[in-house]
């Protein structure tokens, strides 16, 4: 496969913009180690509008069309809410959302890249997953973290049909989960997460395809073995466990070399997709020695 180069794509404005994006990645990394609460403001990334972020969602619990979540997610009750933490942890238990809200939150402006080859930039509010995991104290044997979305067909109409093997499940390797970029998001633009975006609390892993960033989480389980994950169970040759954004590994349906940036208008150019979605400097080390074509 031929890699796209700057010359293939680029009017100068975009090229400048792309440089800004790359700079954005670096800034976000810096921010990850800043004291909690400090906003990652100087990323150079231009966030999508609230309207765009909240009306174009893949959240099959509410239907398979992009506008279904906005239309139907209002039916979901998000309070009270708690997350069950179990498996290989010293402090298992049911953690009330209000207790979790106690973690200091920060704003993180991240690129968001869907496996369907479109992307947005989203200003999340949340706290590092590492803070939560530190609180529950993973045991030495724990190597993976499994997540589960709420299963409540009465309020999540998409779950009334078996389009996926409910409840939705995702997972990370423990070192991925502990990475400072990995966020538990509770808000966007300083507002509480809208239901269609995964209220009241969701995962955000910016260097992976969007489906890894599981929404409306009710269970977190520390495990020794790689946990089953929904899309991987559905079509293992299409969706790997890792699902790292990688322009060189195609999905059978979509080339991943370029992406449609949502909000750019009708004639916005496709953009070249960046390795690890632009976060290679921060996360490439997690995968050293792995064959990313085989473990995709």
């Amino acid at each position, binding site marked *: 496969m031929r890699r796209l180069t700057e010359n*293939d794509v680029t009017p100068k404005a975009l090229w400048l913009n792309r440089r800004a994006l790359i700079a954005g990645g670096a800034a976000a990394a810096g921010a990850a180690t800043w004291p909690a609460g400090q906003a990652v403001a100087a990323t150079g990334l231009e966030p999508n509008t609230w309207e765009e972020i909240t009306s174009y969602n893949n959240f099959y619990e509410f239907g398979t069309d992009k506008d279904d979540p906005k239309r139907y997610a209002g039916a979901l009750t998000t309070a009270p809410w708690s997350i069950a933490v179990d498996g290989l942890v010293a402090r298992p238990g049911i953690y009330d959302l209000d207790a979790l809200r106690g973690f200091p939150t920060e704003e993180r402006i991240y690129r968001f890249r869907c496996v369907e080859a479109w992307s947005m930039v989203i200003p999340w509010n949340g706290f590092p997953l590492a803070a939560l995991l530190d609180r529950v104290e993973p045991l030495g044997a724990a190597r993976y973290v499994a997540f589960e979305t709420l299963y409540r067909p009465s309020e999540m109409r998409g779950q009334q049909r078996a389009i996926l093997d409910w409840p939705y499940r995702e997972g990370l390797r423990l070192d991925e989960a502990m990475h400072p970029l990995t966020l538990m998001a509770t808000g966007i633009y300083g507002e509480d997460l809208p239901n269609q975006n995964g209220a009241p609390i969701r995962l955000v892993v910016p260097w992976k395809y969007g489906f890894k960033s599981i929404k409306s989480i009710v269970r977190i389980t520390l495990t020794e073995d790689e946990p089953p994950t929904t899309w991987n169970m559905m079509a293992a040759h299409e969706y790997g466990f890792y699902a790292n954004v990688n322009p060189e590994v195609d999905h059978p349906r979509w080339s991943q070399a*370029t992406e449609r940036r949502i909000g750019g208008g009708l004639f916005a150019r496709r953009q070249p997709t960046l390795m690890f979605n632009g976060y290679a400097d921060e996360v490439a080390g997690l995968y050293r020695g792995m064959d990313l074509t085989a473990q995709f």
Partner: protein
Amino acid sequence: MAALVERVNDAARLVPRGAVYALGLLPAVWIAFALFTGRLGVDPVLEAEHRLGLTALQFLIATLAVTPLMRLTGIKLIRLRRPLGLLAFTYVVLHFLVWLVLDMQLFWAQIAEDLVKRWYIILGMAGLLAMLPLAWTSRDAALRRMGGAAWRRLHRLTYLAAAAAALHYLMLAKTLTLEPLLYAGAVFGLLAVRAIPRRPRNPARA
């Protein structure tokens, strides 16, 4: 029932073909207008691509339905079949152009890869290519030149185009949802009824 069929047939004879084209192109006009005035939501290119593809499939199904409708009910819309088929073709071409120009933006390397690697694209392309000779030979002059039998044989490519399109739609869905199944059901149902032996009192018509 027979009286109703007669009435429908009388009415159908009065419909000018031009009106079918005009009405049939309305969705395209609306989609273009909506596209250029920001009425197609957050991802307008994909939305236009989808709507054009869906309209193409609907016209294909309508085209396929003409003969079974005549055989099963006696309603004769055969005059409208050519406009319906050409409208289907028009929407397929528009759908393809949106993909090529607005979605893929003439990234030839990626386009070439998609055309050989992605089954749903290959099937869509098969559908489009199968329709080219049909559009080319759609005029009366072509029918006269070829002779009815050869023309009818060639135009069985419609079956291939429709089957390819139905599979194209089924395959591009990430999960099995109802809509592509219903469309595939319609297409393959309309193909299947053609296998039913004709009743003698119906004159043979393809």
